[in-house]
């Protein structure tokens, strides 16, 4: 418990991540105006994925937590991924 308190990042990291999130949001908004055809969803999901990695790791401290929480998170993520892929079997072949 003590050493995970020690490893918490300082304010500078939080501010840097916040700025990065703002930057990604503006990229999302900009990209929405460009017609990318079939890649629109892929790009939007890609940016959203990067943003959530930042939020989960830094703001939600998962990076500094015990391994078990990472395992839980990866399992949930794997489930979500399976759901996405299975839904795509409908969307792509419809």
């Amino acid at each position: 418990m003590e050493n995970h308190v020690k490893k918490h990042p300082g304010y500078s990291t939080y501010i840097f991540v916040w700025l990065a999130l703002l930057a990604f949001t503006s990229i999302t908004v900009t990209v929405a105006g460009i017609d990318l055809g079939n890649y629109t969803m892929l790009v939007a999901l890609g940016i959203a994925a990067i943003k959530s990695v930042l939020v989960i790791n830094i703001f939600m401290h998962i990076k500094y937590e015990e391994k078990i929480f990472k395992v839980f998170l990866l399992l949930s993520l794997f489930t979500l991924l399976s759901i996405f892929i299975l839904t795509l079997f409908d969307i792509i072949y419809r």
Partner: protein
Amino acid sequence: MANGKDTVAENFYNQSTNKHTGILSWLLTVDHKRIGLMYLYAILTFFVVGVIIGLLMRLELIAPGRQLMDAQTYNALFTLHGVIMIFLFIIPGLPAIFGNFFLPIQLGARDVAFPRLNLLSFYVYLAGAFLALLSLFLPGGPIDTGWTFYIPYSVRSTTNVSLAIFAAFVLGFSSILTGINFVTTVHRLRAPGMTFFKMPLFIWATYATAWIQIIATPVIGITILLVMVERAFGVGIFDPALGGDPILFQHMFWIYSHPAVYIMILPAMGVVSEIIPTFVRRTIFGYKAIAISSLAIAFVGYLVWAHHMFTSGMSDTARWIFSLLTFIVALPSGVKVFNWVATMYKGSIDPKPPFLWVMNFIFLFSIGGLTGLVLGSLATDIHLHDTYFVVAHFHYVMFGGTGTIFFAALHYWFPKMFGKMYNDRLARIAVVLFFVGFNLLYFPKFILGYMGMPRRYYDYLPQFEPLQFVSTVGSWILAGTIFFIIGYLIHALLKGKKATSNPWGGVTLEWHIPSPPPLENFKEIPTVTHEPYDFSQLKEMKDE
């Protein structure tokens, strides 16, 4: 009772966790057992309401044409019956009542990991129920979309759809909070020596369920919010008239609601794995296989949702993939059923009422499960989709499965929860009546469905009348039995014989402590040395 010592025995009924006495000591309690009981009273009340609505629907269907209500009222009633039975009874039923009461005790803990969060989840449940009730009486009228809220009708219906689905949203939070509490409790509060593979199977099942509650419930939350946004602001998300995709709604709805089916059935399977060893005096056959099959069902349950959508117009590729995946669920379910039966082989069977309820379950659930395969295979589903066959199938699985086990669990743990014994003879009669009423009510629906009777219809062709009539008569027997059960249990509460600490000869931790248990359950946290169903401890327990 002549012994004054018995009357002052401390139990959670006379020990409060707060400074209040009387009703406030219950309403503000953080004791997992009291919260479990408050859930029991609330859930049972809603269950009875759901039963009465079901009776009214069956009465309307006793003959073709109008009997006692108009078509709009009928639409509202089947929606309400579904919403109440699914969201207020069967999803929270086993985990919130029996999970709350017995999970900490079986783990050897004094309470759940977050007692206050537990109380909060109860009040969130009540708030959700209140919103659902409110939606009935506000102008606009009760929701008439069916419990599945399918688009586009749910966007266009002028009834109180938004409020009713918001109620489901709130109830989802209650479910998530309970799930978080149980996962944390299992990881953090196991007694010394209680390794994962020494946990009773009810805990394994509740643990797997808790994960589904945490991961799947947010999906229905998002879906409901999107429908509300679409209704309020006309944003085209699902409604094709606004440029949306109605099949996307069905995907998102079933991505939650199919795993929710396993939220309903997994804890029931856990209860079965508790009751069978106790009444056959034999350790469970294939402990690890049953434990892991719970996790397997929980996981595979995420991958099969679109078998509800074979006729929706989704792609052919998706249809055969989901049909294939659906068959995989039968494997871990089969593992369980075969292990239960193998446990009974050469056991010393003592057919007390809880065991008879489990026999009821295995029979009814097997019919439900096997007809599920008929619906899971793509070709037959095209014929049977949205007919009474589906209605019969899910009542066999949900009511014959989880509902039956709700009564099994109530009869198994009643002496522990209330410290009283019920009348054994009446309980046996109830099992038989339940079986007769249940099959009379639901089995004709398989045939009706096969003949082409669509579900949710207010009226029907004359050739369906005889079977509809039989079904309605079955509903009277079944409902009568349910009121009979509630009656003799209340009588037992008031006048029943005092229960000993271990009336059935069980060996999991709840049978090591007094009935009813004291506040915080254990004087000293036990150290677990035995396997969960090691009946050689019975002798030691008698010496204790």
